[in-house]
Every structure is written in structure tokens, then in C-alpha cells.
């Protein structure tokens, strides 16, 4: 079979066949019939919510007013009030400190455990089960169990005293200086399994043969870790850090249910402060303004996170997929 060469003038643009066209149409139909209702749902639920949020942050409203619409327009006053509120500033600081500290703690613990566990050994399944249990406890339950355990004359202090021999009775929950670190430790206990599971998956997914090749080429365990495993773990590490950080910023039960932001304001993170402002001090408008600012802050962080994660995913895909195979897919 010979291939005829078509002179330039006679060559036509290659049109997709009718089958292809109708297929594309069907896909578009499918896409909108599925995404359509959901988009509508999001619009009908989220849009009004965001609109109300904006409205209340621009209008001063108190519970004594009749309807919402009686509120007085105050422009950006509320935002100014929030931004100059030292308590707000402290709440931001506490939230960031809490999120950073507990994320790093979760990560280091989870990574260490995963590194010890990713090669098969006797009893591995048993340890795995025990290690994921803390994550399966409801956060509120963690809060209350912590209360039962951490009061000054409680079991935790008792155990530590017995182990180290010296009297060890810090007032975990009533001493304002150690209350926030205490809650951070709780958070780490609760969520280290999360990082553990992710890092374990990442470590297990590293192909065995490059590691063996490195071994036989003379690399020590340390070299292998730094040169081969860590670079291939980058996407997973970022994922573990980013997800945990975002969730830690939003943490509520342990700070509120357990301590109500106390003692004093020692554990008053952003979610707690917003909650207090809105539902205890009933400063709805101020709360709305605060929420808006925090939301913008989080959106910025989240956009950054998206970009980071997408870049990591892309590098992961290119590393493992051969360029040749990809070309064949496209053909």
C-alpha cells in the first residue's frame, strides 16, 4: 500500500469525524448534568453565606436591632477595629504558633515512625494498628480524655513522676504558660498517625531497585536517605506538612471544648476568638469582619499550597512516567 502525496492546495484540514463530534457532545452533556447541580448547590449555599459575611462586616449590627437590614453602614471601620485589636493579633500569633509547632511535631514523629516501619518485620501489623488508633479518636473525645488525664494530680504526672523519680506535677491545663504547649502535644498525639500514614505510603512507594543500586555503589544508610529517598519523598512531605498545617489552623475542639481558650486567653487561637466574639460577646459584625480577614489569609495560604502541591505532583509524574510512554498516549 503506497501513501499518496497530496499537493498542498488539495489538502484539507483534518476534520473530526461525526462519531468524534457526537462523543464530545455527549461528554459535555455528561459534564454539565453532573457538575451543574453541584455548582448550583454551591452557588445557593455558599454565595449567600459569603454575601452575608461581607454585609455584616460592613454594617454594624447588634442583637437589639430588629432585622438584619436595620444595621448601620460603617464602611471599613470594623475591619480597622479588628486589625488594631491586640487580642486579635495575639490570636493570630497563637494560631500560627500552634499550627507550626504541632505540624512539625506531627511530621517528625510520623516520619520517624514510618521510617522504622516501612520494611516488613515481625509484629508490624500490630504496631500499625496501635499507631493509627489515636487518629481514630474523635477530637472532642481527645479533649475530654485529656482533661481526665492531665489535671495536676492526674495519671500523666503520676506516671512521669514514677519514671523519672522526681516530683513532676506541672499544671498542664491551668498554667497559662504551658497550656498552649500542652494542647500542641495533644494535637501531635492525635494527628501524628496522619503524617505517619502518609509518610509510610510515600516510603513504600519508592522503588526498591534504585535503593539497592545505591547500596551496592557504596552508599551508607545516611547517603541513601539523603540522596535517594528524601528527594523522591518531597511531594509526600509537602502534602503532610500542608494538610496538617491547614487543619491545625482550623483546630477547634481541643482549644474550645477543653479550655474555652483559657486559662485566661492562653489558648485563644483564631477559631476560639472568632467563636467568642460572635456567640458569647454577640459582636456579630466584628466577628464577621474577623472571619473575613481570616478567610482571606487562609485563601492566600491555600492558593500557595495548591501551587506547591501541583508542582510536586507534576514532578512526580514526570519522574516516574517515561516520556516515550506519554507520547504514545497522546497519539
Amino acid at each position, binding site marked *: 500500500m503506497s501513501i499518496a502525496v497530496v499537493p498542498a492546495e488539495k489538502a484539507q484540514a483534518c476534520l473530526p469525524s461525526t462519531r468524534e463530534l457526537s462523543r464530545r457532545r455527549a461528554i459535555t452533556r455528561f459534564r454539565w448534568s*453532573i457538575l451543574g447541580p453541584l455548582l448550583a448547590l454551591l452557588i445557593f449555599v455558599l454565595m449567600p453565606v459569603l454575601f452575608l459575611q461581607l454585609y455584616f462586616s460592613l454594617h454594624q449590627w447588634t442583637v437589639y436591632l430588629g432585622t438584619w437590614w436595620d444595621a448601620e453602614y460603617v464602611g471599613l471601620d470594623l475591619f480597622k477595629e479588628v486589625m488594631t485589636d491586640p487580642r486579635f493579633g495575639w490570636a493570630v500569633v497563637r494560631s500560627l504558633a500552634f499550627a507550626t509547632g504541632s505540624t512539625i511535631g506531627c511530621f517528625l514523629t510520623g516520619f520517624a515512625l514510618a521510617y522504622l516501619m516501612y520494611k516488613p518485620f515481625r509484629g508490624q501489623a500490630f504496631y500499625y494498628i496501635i499507631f493509627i488508633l489515636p487518629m481514630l479518636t474523635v477530637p472532642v473525645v481527645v479533649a*475530654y480524655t485529656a482533661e481526665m488525664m492531665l489535671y495536676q494530680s492526674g495519671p500523666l504526672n503520676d506516671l512521669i513522676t514514677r519514671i523519672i523519680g522526681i516530683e513532676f506535677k506541672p499544671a498542664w491545663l491551668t498554667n497559662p504558660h504551658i497550656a498552649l504547649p500542652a494542647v500542641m502535644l495533644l494535637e501531635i498525639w492525635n494527628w501524628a498517625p496522619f503524617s505517619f500514614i502518609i509518610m509510610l505510603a510515600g516510603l513504600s512507594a519508592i522503588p526498591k531497585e534504585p535503593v539497592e543500586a545505591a547500596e551496592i555503589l557504596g552508599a551508607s544508610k545516611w547517603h541513601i536517605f539523603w540522596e535517594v529517598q528524601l528527594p523522591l519523598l518531597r511531594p509526600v512531605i509537602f502534602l503532610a506538612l500542608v494538610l496538617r498545617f491547614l487543619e491545625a489552623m482550623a483546630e477547634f475542639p481541643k482549644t474550645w471544648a477543653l479550655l474555652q481558650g483559657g486559662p485566661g486567653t492562653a489558648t485563644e487561637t483564631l477559631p476560639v476568638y472568632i467563636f467568642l466574639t460572635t456567640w458569647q460577646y454577640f459582636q456579630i459584625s466584628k466577628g464577621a469582619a474577623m472571619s473575613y480577614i481570616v478567610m482571606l489569609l487562609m485563601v492566600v495560604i491555600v492558593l500557595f499550597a495548591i501551587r506547591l502541591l501541583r508542582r510536586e505532583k507534576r514532578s512526580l509524574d514526570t519522574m516516574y512516567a517515561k516520556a516515550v510512554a506519554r507520547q504514545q498516549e497522546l497519539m
Partner: protein
Amino acid sequence: MRKSQRQRLSAVVRYFVLSMWALVAFFPIYWMISTSFKPDTQWFAWPPVYFPDPPTLSNYLNVWFGAEEYAATQYAISSQKPLISLANSTIIASVSTLLAVLFGSVIAYGVSRYRILSEARMFQLLMLRMIPPIVVVAPLSLYYSALGLLDTMTGLILIYFITSLPYAVWMMKSFIDEVPREIEQAAEILGASRWRTVFEVVLPLVRSGLVATFLFILILTWSEYLLALIITKTQVTTLPIELSKYQGSTEGRVYGRQAALAVGITVPLMIAGLIIRKHLARGFSFGMVRR
């Protein structure tokens, strides 16, 4: 050092470190369980009582069954029977999770096979979930009260559905991705319509994935605190809120009762979590782990 000696030493170190953490991980859970069996004199005795002596079921009976006895003294807010909260939690969590998994799977199928959502959108969907709910609960509750959804099960179900959807889509997509396209093509050539292919060929192959996704989201929904706190008032209570009602204005803490309630909340979730433990990694990987 000989290789075999070295191997043994590192094994010993490994077991030691892992066991240490295992103790740390398990102790609070143990404490919760043991406290739930303690008579009230031992709730905060000093020195602390590590094993209830004698163990008693009174906390459980009190909390889960004897409403009057326990409504009388210890807390002030309202007298919801925990069994009702249990029923509420179960219904709300199950329905919202079911809806999320259903819709999520359909979307996931579309994303996996036809790319109806780009990778950028998928990440944006995920990150939507990551915005702290606290920033929208205030206007949400106002909006809900205007719609009459405040303090209703429907209201909670709706919001849980929306927040669970991203997870459902991500997880089911990774399961559907693993079904080779050739299998669907084979069915197509043998004469099956698209629907039949999906129902008779694809779905059975992702069955375990469906279960895993369902339980995973169920765990998240069941333990959710903040949204439930805001949206429920008196008519509806979920278990996490029920637990927090003990934090009332009281002289002492009813640790034993709290523990009994806590155990009841936590144990089903632990069982669910252990059932799907092999799939947990998938729920958390979000494309960062090569399969």
C-alpha cells in the same frame, strides 16, 4: 561489628522505640476505657487508680440508659438522651456520607475517564475543604435560620454533604483510576452500553473502594464538632455535642460518665477505622504517592 550483630542491634532499637510510642499512643485510650469502668470514688483519686477496683457498669447504665438519674444533677443545658443523640448522629452521618459517596463517585468517574475537572480544579476542590469552617459558620447559621434549616437534621446533612464531597471525589477517583480502561473497552466491544459497563463491570471492581471511602468519610462526619455546635440547638444533637454538655456548671467533673459516653462514641469509629486501615493511605495521599 558483624552484619548479623548489627542487624540484631537495630532490631532491638526499633522494637524499643516503637514500643515506647505504642505505650504513649495507647495510654490515653486505655485511661478513657478504664475510667469508664470506675466507680465515682476513683475518678480522680490520688494516687490515680490505674485499674478500676472493682470495675462497674454503672457509668454505662447511667449514661446510656438511665436518663432521669443523670438528667437530674450534673449539667444544666438540656436533657437529651444519649440514645437519641446516637440516633441523630447515625442518621446524619450516614445520610450525608451516602450522598457524598454517591455524587462523589459519579464525579470521580467523570474525572477519571473524561477529565470533566482539570487537575487544577481538583486541587481547588480539595483546598476548599481546607478553609477553616469557623470563618463561615456565623453567616451560615444566620442563613440557615432564615431558611429554617437551623437546628434541623437536614441542615447538618446538607453542610456535611458539601464538606465531604471533595474527599469522596478524590478517593473514588484513585480507585476508579485503577480499573484498566481496556476492561471497559472489552465490555463495549461485547455490546454493553455505557450504563451496563459502569454497573456490571466498573462498580464491582471498586466495591472495596466504595466501602473504604464511605467509612473514611463517615469517621470524619461522625466526629465533627464545630458545625454541629453551631447548627444544632435544642431539637437536634449529635454525639460530640452531647459529650460537651457534660462540661456544664458543676462542682466536680463526672469523669466516669464522660468516659462511658466517650467510649461509646469512639469505639464504633475505631472499629470502622481498623476495617479500612489498608485504605487510609489512599484517602490521604492526594496524588502525591505513586501507585
